[in-house]
């Protein structure tokens, strides 16, 4: 990795700086200018997100065909390659969706809305750092920016008891996982003598377990938290259960997106699939992370809990994709990275769509128990439709793109030589469909005497939720171009 100067570092991290600037501006305006319209914060957030994406595209403009790396800066700590371009665009897109969909949280957040937007942009900035990093220090710096911001977003809803508990759960589990991750990275640093993931990759290829294996295992365990995989999913469940719909959608959307990106960057480009210990561990973890939430969801009576468990189950799928991140007997890649990079946005979209739809319903006074949704299709057809699309995507039911994401990940895991993991995770996914069907039955089939709902949700929030839900179908139709983009991103990791 070539060493570049300061201008290069600035250029490579320009998306992050733009987002931080947006966050600062939002915070200042919220603090100093009374009655600054909330729409203005959304405009700032959206413009910052779009500008960050444009900056990433601009940085990538000078890509070197041989290395696929446009910029390498900070002694290789950050890079602008095809993967980082894909990842930055993904993180910023999720951030923009979160900003646009925040309207339904206005009532709950009140005067803290500017702070919420500032934290949202800071978390997105943290996401861009982990997308651009290729070094342990930069990774930890990105997580240090990301995790407190997410906790802060949850904690801002301090008027409700549940939100405070959720923030505390996030701090506890997040802190534990960050510690585990640091411990794992420290062991790897000790074994290889470098914090550069690319150099560590070469060193680890000739390393011998068990010490390095322990380091890799701890790293994986720490990263699993970010994607909400069980048994470290308590924070995800707490946020899904207690936070306002739009807030939960933002927090979990950014967290899972960043987690998926880090998984790929660290474990695929950093440690390669040839190192068996962590691959086997990833398989076991994927099985646990899928089967546990699926089985628990059968007894769930709260829609929020079902969605939280679905997020955790999707984390299991993302972990399973790592099993197919190597090459097959014929020397060709198994496609696990491409599957993960296709699955990640569609999983996040369905998660955010479900929670945003719940946020709309929450504003209209509808509870989150399955029983509360009886006759929803008659009372509020639009909200029922949005929730249905989100939940169907979460369960991987056709015609949502989550279905294709699951197929591709299963395919890559079987190709990677782990059909037993694929069978288990697939079974978990299908078990999870049962509670989703029950919810759909409550929405469409079970009647109650409640009058039709007159929604008071802001139009932009409804439109954002609608677009997020509908994108799940669009992604299925446009799977060809999307998987092509994922393929290009994956190329720079090999």
């Amino acid at each position, binding site marked *: 990795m070539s060493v570049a100067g300061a201008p290069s570092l600035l250029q490579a991290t320009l998306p992050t700086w733009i987002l931080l600037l947006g966050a600062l501006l939002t915070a200042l305006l919220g603090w100093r200018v009374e009655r600054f319209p909330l729409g203005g914060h959304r405009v700032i957030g959206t413009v910052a997100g779009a500008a960050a994406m444009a900056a990433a595209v601009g940085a990538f403009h000078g890509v070197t065909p041989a290395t696929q790396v446009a910029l390498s800066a900070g002694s290789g700590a950050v890079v602008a390659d095809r993967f980082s371009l894909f990842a930055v665009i993904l993180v910023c897109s999720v951030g923009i969706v979160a900003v646009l969909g925040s309207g339904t949280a206005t009532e709950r957040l009140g005067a803290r809305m500017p702070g919420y937007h500032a934290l949202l942009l800071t978390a997105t900035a943290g996401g861009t750092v982990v997308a651009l990093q290729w070094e342990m220090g930069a990774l930890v710096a990105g997580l240090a920016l990301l995790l407190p911001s997410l906790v802060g977003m949850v904690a801002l809803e301090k008027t409700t008891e549940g939100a405070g508990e959720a923030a505390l759960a996030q701090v506890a589990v997040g802190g534990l996982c960050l510690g585990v991750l640091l411990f794992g990275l420290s062991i790897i640093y000790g074994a290889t003598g470098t914090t550069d993931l690319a150099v560590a990759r070469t060193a680890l290829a000739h390393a011998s377990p068990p010490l390095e294996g322990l380091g890799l295992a701890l790293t994986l365990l720490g990263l699993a938290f970010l994607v909400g995989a069980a048994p470290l999913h308590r924070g995800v469940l707490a946020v899904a259960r207690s936070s306002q719909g739009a807030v939960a959608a933002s927090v979990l959307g950014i967290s899972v997106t960043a987690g998926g990106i880090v998984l790929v960057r660290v474990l695929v480009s950093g440690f390669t699939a040839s190192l068996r210990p962590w691959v086997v561990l990833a398989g076991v973890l994927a099985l646990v992370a899928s089967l546990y939430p699926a089985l628990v969801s059968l007894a769930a009576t709260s829609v929020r809990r079902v969605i939280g468990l679905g997020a955790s189950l999707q984390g299991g799928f993302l972990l399973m994709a790592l099993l197919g991140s190597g090459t*097959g007997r014929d020397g*060709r*890649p*198994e*496609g696990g990275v*491409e*599957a993960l990079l296709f699955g990640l946005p569609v999983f996040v979209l369905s998660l955010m769509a479900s929670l945003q739809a719940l946020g709309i319903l929450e504003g209209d006074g509808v509870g989150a128990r399955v029983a509360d949704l009886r006759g929803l*299709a008659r009372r509020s057809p639009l909200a029922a*439709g949005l929730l249905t699309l989100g939940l*169907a995507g979460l369960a991987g*039911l*056709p*015609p949502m793109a989550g*279905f*294709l994401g699951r*197929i*591709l990940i*299963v*395919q890559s895991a*079987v*190709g990677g030589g782990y*059909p037993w993991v*694929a*069978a288990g995770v*697939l*079974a978990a996914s*299908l*078990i999870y*469909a*049962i509670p989703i*069907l029950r919810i*759909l*039955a409550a929405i*469409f*089939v*079970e009647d109650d005497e409640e009058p039709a709902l007159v929604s008071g949700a802001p139009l932009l929030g409804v439109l954002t939720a609608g677009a997020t839900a509908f994108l799940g179908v669009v992604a299925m139709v446009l*799977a*060809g171009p999307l*998987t*092509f983009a*994922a*393929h*290009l991103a994956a190329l720079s990791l090999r």
Partner: protein
Amino acid sequence: MNLLAQAAPSTATTTAGANFPTIVFTLMVWLPVVLALAALVMPERTAEQRSRIRALGASGAGGALFFAIWAVQTQAAAAVAGNGGGIPSTDQLQETHGWLTALPFTSSYQLNASGVSLALVLLFAVVFFALALAAWKNQHRVKLLTVCLLTVETSFLGVLVSFDWVLFLLFWLLPVAPVYLLVRGFGRGEHPRAAGRHAAGTLVSAALLTLAATLISFQGGARSFSMGGTPVTLHGAGTGVAFWLLTAAFLLPMAVVPLHGALLDLEEDGTGVLAALFASLLPSLGAYGLLEVAVGFFPTTAVDLSLFFAVLAVATVLWSALAALRCDDLRRLIGYAGNALMGVVLLGVAGHTTIALTGALYLLIARGLAMAVLMLLASGIQERTRRTRISQLGGLMWQMPHTAAFWLAGILTAAGVPLLGGFLGMFLLFAGAFPAHRWATAAVLAGMVLVVGGLVWAAQRIFMGGEREAFARVRDLGPLELTYLGILVAVSFFFGIYPDHFTALFINGADHVLFPATYG
């Protein structure tokens, strides 16, 4: 008609028909769901609005039927042309568009249909059209019924013409939510349990199919999800594992013994339209998968395991026959008869000859038509008399002569009486299976005698006897019912009187399953 002469696959190649892009299958598959989406946004507050939704449903099913007939007619003509000395082209209506091309494995939007698919395409399109008309009577949750029915039609037809695993799985899993909602919304008795059992069965079969598809697409060496390259050869135990995965996945919806409980519950607890849908089409979809996919992909393994299928066929037919004889519930009786007929189809699979498989195709059509007629009639009888048990009925011939006539047509179709759809199917199937499994064929024949006896006995108890005061005000079939039942029976007569129109097509399909290498 010299079937044996036609049965031998020829090796010369000919090109038939015009070679231009077509979207017949696309229109046939997607039209219903597009109209379902239109229905979704329509209001259903007034009677007029509900009528519009029903009309949209009938239009969707009618449109699909139109394109199905077009496809069958085109391919049948090509098959007849091919009998002049070459392999008939089955690709005239093929649609292939690249979809996932950047991944290490490829998938495409590929629709095509063999003779096996087309036989069932016609059946499904006809039955769905009849069901869309039958659903016109429904006054409750019209939109839900219409949207779900049309979505299920798209998914069922999609399964039949998918030639890519991803598409196949998509269509296979697509009806799980609509069917669940249909049973929950329009069922009676213990319908939540029945809905749950069916959904679980579909999900399990989808999981098995997914694993089989991944094994096939990876171990086949091609790294493609295309279903066109049959037969498939896998390394080591891969062939056996994939075949069993596929067989198990398709036997689940076929509802053969001992997997028949869930389907019987659905038939018993659903409304007339749903019961007809489940009894007529769901097992046929499983049979299609078993024939075209499991046997078609692994014909050699299927031959090796033909005894398994023969034993399963005997067990299914005899169990169903005995159960039918002691059954007092009208719909359950028909359900058992349908299961028995599916056992006969299994015997055709065990026979593994062109004749037997051609017979199985004719029988699948006849079975589907007969089950739809009988279930719709049974539902009508139960609604009018408010009785569900056969022992509570009697003397209905006086009030319901048309019902009795259609009932007779239904059981005669199922029994394989000449001039009706089942005759040629039974004849070919038994003739084709007998050389390979003599005892099994005899046992299945004996079982079928019992089943037909049970149906006739039930007809006697329902319709014969003196006029009963309790049923004095019971109405006979109305014009709408006469229309859709008439369509179903007319198609049965058409297949009975003029089966030769489809023979070349069906033989072509059977050969494609048994000798895939010949067809490339």
